[in-house]
């Protein structure tokens, strides 16, 4: 089995190019590769498109900034594709001032769109959003009397994800609810970088317990 390069968070950040579509794992900060996010803020890369569950929790008074929030604050994104921005008023501010374009996608649809992109499907038919603003501009398909929206795959250039454990080949295991979008994003991007809390030898993970197969992972960062 091939070993994957172990790189620093700064080296990981350097692989994100201006204009890239970045898939960032995590759910309100849980399961987000915080070390790479920090390095990416330091790198000052901008003009990115974010694909993530949310824009994290941002509270200036309490000094709280989790998930993608530090990157939002740094104005790294020209486009933000997420299901929720309610815990990050800075996102709302940028949206209201036209500094960023925000595209809101139902969470389950977002998950399927990322999965579709990574799994070679053009899209899926979902009942979610029928009869709401979400259906605008989308093809509707009726099957057996039920109406579905055609939702297309949402691929990315680079996935920045977080795992509990990686072996040197890149097999990943996630912890508890820190799993969320991470395994989906690992399938959907040209380059996949994982920030792992623990890096173990090949053979140390039971092949039945692997959540993401090694072949999806290109680089490994040791989390601090």
């Amino acid at each position: 089995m091939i070993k994957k390069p172990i790189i620093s968070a700064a080296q990981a950040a350097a692989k994100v190019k201006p204009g890239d579509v970045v898939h960032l794992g995590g759910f309100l900060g849980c399961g987000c590769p915080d070390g790479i996010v920090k390095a990416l803020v330091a790198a000052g890369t901008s003009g990115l498109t974010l694909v993530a569950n949310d824009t994290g929790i941002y509270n200036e008074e309490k000094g709280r900034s989790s998930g993608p929030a530090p990157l939002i604050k740094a104005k790294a994104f020209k486009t933000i594709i997420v299901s929720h921005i309610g815990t990050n008023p800075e996102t709302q501010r940028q949206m209201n001032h036209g500094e960023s374009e925000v595209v809101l996608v139902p969470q389950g649809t977002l998950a399927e769109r990322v999965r579709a992109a990574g799994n070679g499907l053009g899209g899926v038919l979902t009942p979610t959003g029928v009869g709401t603003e979400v259906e605008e501009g989308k093809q509707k398909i009726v099957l057996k009397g039920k109406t579905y929206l055609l939702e297309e795959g949402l691929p990315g250039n680079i996935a920045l994800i977080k795992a509990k454990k990686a072996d040197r080949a890149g097999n990943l295991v996630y912890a508890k609810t820190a799993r969320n979008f991470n395994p989906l994003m690992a399938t959907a991007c040209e380059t996949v970088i994982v920030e792992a809390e623990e890096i173990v030898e090949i053979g140390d993970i039971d092949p039945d317990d692997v959540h993401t197969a090694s072949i999806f992972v290109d680089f490994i960062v040791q989390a601090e």
Partner: protein
Amino acid sequence: MIEYIENKEIIARRIARFFASGDVVNLGIGLPTMVGNFVPQDVTVILQSENGMMGLGPAPAKGDEDKDLTNAGGMPVTVLPGGCFFDSATSFGIIRGGHVDYTVLGVLEVDQEGNLANYKIPGKMVPGMGGAMDLVAGSKKVIAATTHLEKTGASKLKHRCALPLTAAHEVDIVVTDVGYFTVKGGTFHLEEYFAPYTPEWIVEHTNADIVVAPGCKEFK
């Protein structure tokens, strides 16, 4: 003359009584989360959390928080024995696939057609729908949980929602702090009322079509 006094606890208390042992339930943030406190001791419901777990347990003791174990509101929680974790595609597969028996959500508006608005006030509040659209479209039964009146005195139950919809025609049950309603045939049906309110008071203070169901009774 009955004076309206907001009472969230009665809403949570009534909703908790819908569940049977084995039901899979998703409780939204805020008022719906309170429902978990009132499930009868002899009923075992399985709480699903859309960020990727089955068997959601109570908040941990201070100091026992696990950064990798949170609910859909980002707050530390625990997992009960027999629970499990999964990714977001599986989580919403469970939701959309009809494997959740009840979803309980807060509302901004709910109407007699079963339409629900709870994710957006244009130009004012745009938090995003998160998982709400999938939960309302996919769950077997959708329960809207809401105080009956706005602070302004306006009815939250409407003839027709004015705000952008979270989902169309999906609400089955509405529980407010004055009564419990089913939604069918384009009208609200009052099934139970909560003292001190009476069916007459409720009809008078609801800006929507209401039928008082034949077996309508007081909830105790």
